[in-house]
């Protein structure tokens, strides 16, 4: 079983996003990028599958600059190979174009199971896994947990409305958007990551992407805040009193 995990780096929200208010552009070069947390879960789920069943795990990132550390970290955690897709890409490359690049690569280099984070902060609707599946004509599911192999089929859970979970099965190859791994993503010690940087190489694969239908981002802006939060000051007693009176005022407590 060959597993491919799609990873990307996203702006770090601990630091503020840097926005040029006049032009409505995000200043990518002035922001710090970190691995998307859902992708961390996809990597973890892949490694757990590997532990159960001897699969081979490859992590992939579109080379938008500065993805090396992310890939070496995945290797330090236990991934077998890391691929960097190279071409005409940068931090502002659209998800549509990234999906096309990944699809080109997978067409030439087949995998049985393709995992990705269900979404990313710059891909809230989780387009990448869905588009990769669409472009490759593969089955796809989103918001997936608990992925297990059963012979040459893949079993996994998906959340439905009304508190229902479904267990689904699919033939391979299949693309899954992972909501959360079975266990919290593991820690890669810095010594191990640094050792990987010395002892392993990231495979660089050149991909050419044709013109794809894309949307144009006209501007980014901060929504105007509607309403205000009330900050409650004082010692514990005063704060508790104020909370109780708010709950009463708004009829939020019974009796």
């Amino acid at each position, binding site marked *: 079983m060959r597993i491919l995990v799609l990873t990307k780096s996203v702006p*770090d929200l*601990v*630091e*503020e996003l840097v926005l040029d208010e006049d032009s409505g552009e995000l200043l990518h070069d002035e922001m*710090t990028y*970190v691995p998307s947390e859902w992708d961390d879960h996809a990597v973890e789920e892949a490694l757990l599958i590997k532990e159960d069943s001897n699969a081979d795990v490859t992590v992939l990132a579109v080379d938008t600059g500065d993805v090396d550390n992310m890939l070496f970290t995945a290797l330090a955690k236990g991934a077998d190979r890391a691929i960097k897709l190279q071409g005409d890409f940068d931090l502002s490359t659209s998800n549509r174009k990234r999906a096309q690049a990944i699809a080109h690569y997978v067409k030439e280099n087949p995998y049985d199971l393709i995992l990705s984070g269900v979404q990313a902060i710059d891909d809230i609707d989780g387009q990448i896994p869905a588009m990769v599946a669409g472009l490759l004509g593969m089955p796809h599911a989103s918001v997936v947990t608990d992925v297990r192999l059963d012979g040459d089929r893949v079993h996994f859970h998906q959340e439905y409305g009304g508190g229902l979970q479904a267990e689904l099965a699919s033939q391979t190859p299949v693309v899954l958007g992972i909501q959360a791994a079975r266990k*919290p993503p*593991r*820690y890669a*010690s*810095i*010594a*191990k*990551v*640094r050792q990987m940087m010395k002892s392993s190489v990231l495979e660089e694969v050149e991909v050419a992407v044709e013109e794809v239908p894309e949307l144009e981002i006209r501007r980014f802006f901060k929504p105007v805040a509607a309403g205000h939060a009330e900050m409650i000051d004082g010692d514990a007693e005063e704060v508790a009193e104020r909370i109780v009176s708010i709950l009463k005022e708004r009829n939020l407590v019974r009796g």
Partner: protein
Amino acid sequence: MQKAKSIELEVAVVNGIELPGHWNRMFEPRVISEYDLSVLDQVTSIPGAESLGYCYQCGKCTAVCPVETVGDYSPRKIFRKTQLGVSLMDSPDLWLCTTCRNCLRVCPKEVNMIDIMPAVREQAVLEGKAPAELLTAFENTARYGNPLGEPPRKRTEWVKSAEVPVPVMSQVKAPVDVLWFVECYPSYHPRGKDASVALARLFNALGVEFGILGTEEKCSGDSQRMAGEKGLFEMLAEHNIKMLSKYQFNQIVVTDPHAFNAFLHEYPKYGGQWPVQHYTQFLAPLIDQMHLTRPLNKKVTFHDPCYLGRHNGEYEAPRDLLKAIPGLDLVEMGHCRETAYCCGGGGGGMWLDSFTRDYTSQRLSEKRVLEAVEYGADILAVTCPYEVSRFEDAVKSTGNGGRLEVKDIAELLAYSAELI
């Protein structure tokens, strides 16, 4: 295996009488063969952890280990459990030692937890066995350069409240006398920042030519090293040394005893060799120039930080400074100087509070606060950035709010010099 250094004499001459020591079986580590020692061997084969095997169960450490007073813990017990086959790597015991160094002070066999703990923990971290909250602190430090997970860009934000010049080296184009290594808690923690503001004003009042690294500074990493993340420590050390090397200064002054320890003993191994002083050492000779005019008519007791006192032997500078404040009545607690109790923050303890709670009856900081109250102190003076927040929480949780204040020595000095 490295042999234990025997401290007993083979022959002693007392009043001209020769006393042979052959009856004393403690010259060499005793080989205890009745046990399956494979688990112990596994631990003592880790470089740095050899000395655990030297333990001859005298129990001296049990009497002084702070963790023992709130739990069931000491190097003697760790040796014994490991000897009996309990894996230290999988035991919560591995994360309870605060590397306070009190056991090493009394151990006749030099069983050295300061080397054993980081070595075994490093292995446990590699095997994915470290507590999750500790890993979060590691991840934060790796990503943001501080264990609190605060934005690196905001590292100098405290400077605004100082209201005095705090030059950042990248903007100062000239050499300075003192490179002030501020560290993380003094940069980000609200109470840590209070001490930084106080110190900045003292430096200004004294006319010290100083500069800080600002956003070029990252955590010194010493506690992460003791907690088992040596790789992270090395990365931080390399970064800080590279940044420091860009500038010209005569000496480094640190706020944090853990950074002091790193600059004294560890950074030189990576090529970073500069004269370094803890700020109390730097200020003590300048007492006469500080204009300590405003009296502080309070009973004050001082908590010796493990990494300033026991680890690095400085007990006087903080006391000299406190005694110089008019009206201040300095009382010593029973556990002081080399026997000082530990606040529980060292060796990674700062990031293991929830974990530790399950294995101890009380926080070490609570124990210490109760001792300060017992001695009738109005103020518990501290000089390590981990302590203000730990002790203030402990004052509240032990129901002593309003009875005991916790203040950094820098705050007390700035108060007396009418700078805050």
